[in-house]
Structure formats: C-alpha cells, structure tokens
C-alpha cells in the first residue's frame, strides 16, 4: 500500500472518530478534544496531498500550519467560555446545560 493512501486513511479516520466523539460525548471538554481530532484529520490530509500529489507548491502545508494555530486560538476562547459556564452553572455536562427552552 502506498504512503499517500495510508496517510489519507489515517486522516479520514481521525476526522470521523472526532465527529463520532463530538456527537456521542456529553462532557464539553471531551467534545473540544473531539473537534481537535477532526481538525487534525483535515490537517494531515492537507499535508499528505501536498507532499505526494502537488509537491511543487506549499499551499497545503501553509493551510495546515494555520489550522493548527487557529485550533489553539479556538481552544483558548473555548476554555474561557467553559470556565465561565462552570462558575455560573457548576457543571460541564451539555445535557445539564439547558436553561433555555428546548
């Protein structure tokens, strides 16, 4: 099996494991980790495509770098919001965060 296929399988696998985790887990921090998995799957895909299909330009590499940076920024805002949520409601379980009418 060539390397590109192998990397793409891992990347896609990470993405769908993340999506599954996001939809089934109820702890907000675990959901953040799941989203990070999805983003890393996409970044890995970009890197693999760049290295093996389009090696003459570095578009994919740069986008992957930016995805990592943005994921960090997103995590920072995310955790600030979760801290606030915990102070207000004393829980990080999304099932119990349901003040608003369903």
């Amino acid at each position: 099996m060539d390397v590109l296929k192998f990397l793409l399988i891992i990347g896609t696998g990470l993405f769908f494991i993340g999506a599954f985790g996001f939809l089934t887990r109820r702890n907000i921090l675990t959901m953040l980790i799941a989203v990070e998995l999805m983003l890393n799957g996409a970044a890995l895909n970009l890197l693999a495509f760049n290295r093996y299909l389009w090696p003459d330009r570095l578009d994919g590499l740069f986008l992957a770098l930016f995805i990592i940076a943005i994921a960090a920024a997103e995590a920072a805002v995310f955790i600030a919001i979760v801290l606030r949520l915990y102070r207000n409601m004393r829980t990080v379980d999304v099932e119990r965060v349901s003040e608003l009418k369903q």
Partner: protein
Amino acid sequence: MHYLLLLKHELAATLAIVVLLVARLGRNRETSFYIHLGYLLLLLHVFVSLFPSPEGQLFAGLFVNSPLLGLQKSFLAFGLLLIALTADRWLRQHEYVPEVFLLMISSLLGLFLLISSGSLLMFYLALELATLPIAALCNFDLRRQQSSEAATKMILSSAFSSAILSFGISLLYGSTGSLRFPDIAQRLSGSDPLHVIALVLLFSGFAFKLSVVPFHLWTADVYQGSPVPVTTYLSVVSKGAIVFIFCTALFQVFAPLQSFGRLLLIITAVATLLIGNLFALRQENLKRFLAFSSIAQVGFILVALSGGTKEAVSAAVYFVLVYLFSNVGAFAVVGIVSAATGKETITELRGLYHSNRLLSWVLALSLFSLAGIPPTAGFFGKFFLLMAGAHSSQYALIAFAALNMVVALFYYLRVVRAIFLEPPFEGVQSLNLSTAERLALALSVAGILISGIYSGAYEAIAALI
C-alpha cells in the same frame, strides 16, 4: 493611493481596533467616554465607505476587491453602527464597554476579509476571525446563566462546522491542487465524486453558519441567551456577510457543479422555509421568535440562489440590505425594552402601544417589512428573490415559498395584534429614549421606507454585478 482605496474598510477596522486597544490599556475612564469613542470610530467607518472601491487584487490574489464587494462591506459597516446605537442602554449598564466594541470590530474585520477572500486559506482564516469574537460576545452578560449557555452552544457549533469546512477544503485541495478560487473553478468537474463530496462538506459548513435546516439547532438557543445587540449582530451583519460569500462560492467556485448545487439548494430551501415558519408559529419569547423568523428568511434567499442567474446575486444583496433595516428595527425595540425592564416575551409586551407609542409603531413597521407587506421594502425584497428563483422554472418551489409568506404573515401579525389591541399586561412603563436610540430607530424606519419606495436601490446594485 490605490492600495489605500482597495483596503479602505480593512484599514478603518484595524485603526479602530488599535485606537480602542490604546484607550483600554491607558488609564481608566468613564463608560460614556468609551461609548462615544466607539460611536465615533464606527462613524468614521461609515464615512470611509463613501469613497468608491476600485476593482483589484492584492497579495497574489489572496485578497480581491470590486465595487460590489465594497458596497457589501459598506452595508455591514453601516449595520454595525446602527446596532451599536440601538445598544446604547445595554452598553451604559455594562462594565466592559471597550471590550464589546473591540470584539465586534474584530469580528467585522473578519467578515470584510471573508467577503474579499480570493483563496481558501484566506477564507478559512477570515471565517475564524469572524466567529471566535462572536462566541466570546455571546458570553457578555457575564453573570447570566443563559448567556454562558448561549456562548457554549455557539462555540461548540461553530467549532464543529469549521472542522467540517476544513475537511472539505482538504478534499478540494487534494483533487485540484490549488487553494485559489479561479484555479479551483477551472479544475472542478461535475462528474468527479470527490468534488461532489467536497461540495457537500463545504455546503454543510455554510449551512451551519447560515442556520439552514438541518443545521439550525443551535440558532434559537444562542439567539435567546445572548445579549440583544449580539443577537442582532449575529442575525444581521454576520449572516449577511456569509450570504455574500456563499453567493461567490456558488457562482464562481462551484459553477461547474451547478446542477447538483441546485438540488441541494432546493431541498434545503424547502426544509428551511417549512421548519422556520412552523416553529416561529409557537414561540413565546420574542428573541426566539425572531430567530425562527430569520431562519425562514434565509429559506427565501436559498430559493433565489437556486435560480442560478446573476439576478439571484443582486436580489440577495438587495434583500440583505432590506433585511438589515427591518431586523435592526425589530431587535432595537426588543433590546430597549429588555435592557430597561428585562421583559422579552410576547405576553409581557401585550399592550405596549398604551405606554410606548413610538416603539410600538417601529416594531410594527419592522414586522410588516419582515412579513413582506407592500408599502415596505420587505415586499420588494421578497418579490425580487422569488423572481430570481423563477428563472430555473421550478414553479412548484416558488408557489411553496409564496404560501410560506402567507403563514409568516399570520405569526408576524399575531405579535402586532398583541402589542396594539390586547389589554396591557403588568404595564411596561413609559420609557425615555436617549438620542442614540432615537437616531437608530429613525434610521431603520427611514431605511425600511426609502429602500422600498425608491426603486433606484435595486437597480444600482444590479448594475454593479
């Protein structure tokens, strides 16, 4: 000089951010100083919009600009000024005013870059710059549980949707070898399954941001829990910008996949109209009610885009302008009453007419415009949207949309009836409006009436495309 004109909106936003940062980091001043500084910076922004935007691109095609894009950005800048004016009462009660302006203008800068993006790299960066500050803003009633909950739901849904988007982008890059819009459009073909999957993933990313059914579940909770100015920003400015870039993506990047794109648009348009209207019928909280009404309005835009012609773009841009005035008007009244009394439900606003005549008339006019009743601009907005949708000869879809307008009329009039005809409930006291609030109400009423009566607005937009 050319650079300055090309980047005028972005430079104005950056300048505003720098000034606010300096003002915040310097010695502490009174809230009213920051509020006036914020208004001044936003006014400068609107002033900058008066200069014409030339056609051109910068940074090797990462950033593109044209008269049409410049006009769209001017709408957004004007919308933010209106929102800030309506938020006057809320801002005066708030302890972190410079931060509110900073986050709003950062997000606006993100939206400008988003509209102007010529590459998926820029698109992704700008989208995140636009959404992350909004998530923080949703949290800005710091001690209210509902506000925390809204922020949590906002950041969860936006993180999930941007992950889906980035995976779609990676597939698109893999199959075309470029991130630039013109290159991608050249190499796409309607028969490649990978391209179809990439389109579906990008479409669902957009659908999340636009709250198109089936990705609308976060909308009502976020709109209800956030502070009213933030809800207004989300439903008017942010949604408007995403409609603009969605048009670009559909008509320029994904043009080769048009027939499949049309199928997606028709299915989601029907679902969005149906769900938006059905749920709006039974809402009691006004913010939640306006959330579902805004979902239904996006359904009409999708109907127009499924027509697939140039007129769809001009109709969508015109509709966003009209929708901006109408929605700001409606949210302004809800926001003023909510900031003054904490009352937000339709029952609590019963008989508002007896104590606050001006507010009641503005709310009624905005709701008429949202419903699309003839003398107001909303009628023409909907009319052009449906005309544009009719180009693809999907007459069943147009008839369905027109039927939905009748249903919508029912629930908008229900609110108007509660305000004007029903006996007062606990009596909201008569409110004194500040100058900023009066100005905002006057501007949105003028916008609703003028963009409806004066037919030049639509023609001017259509001439730019």
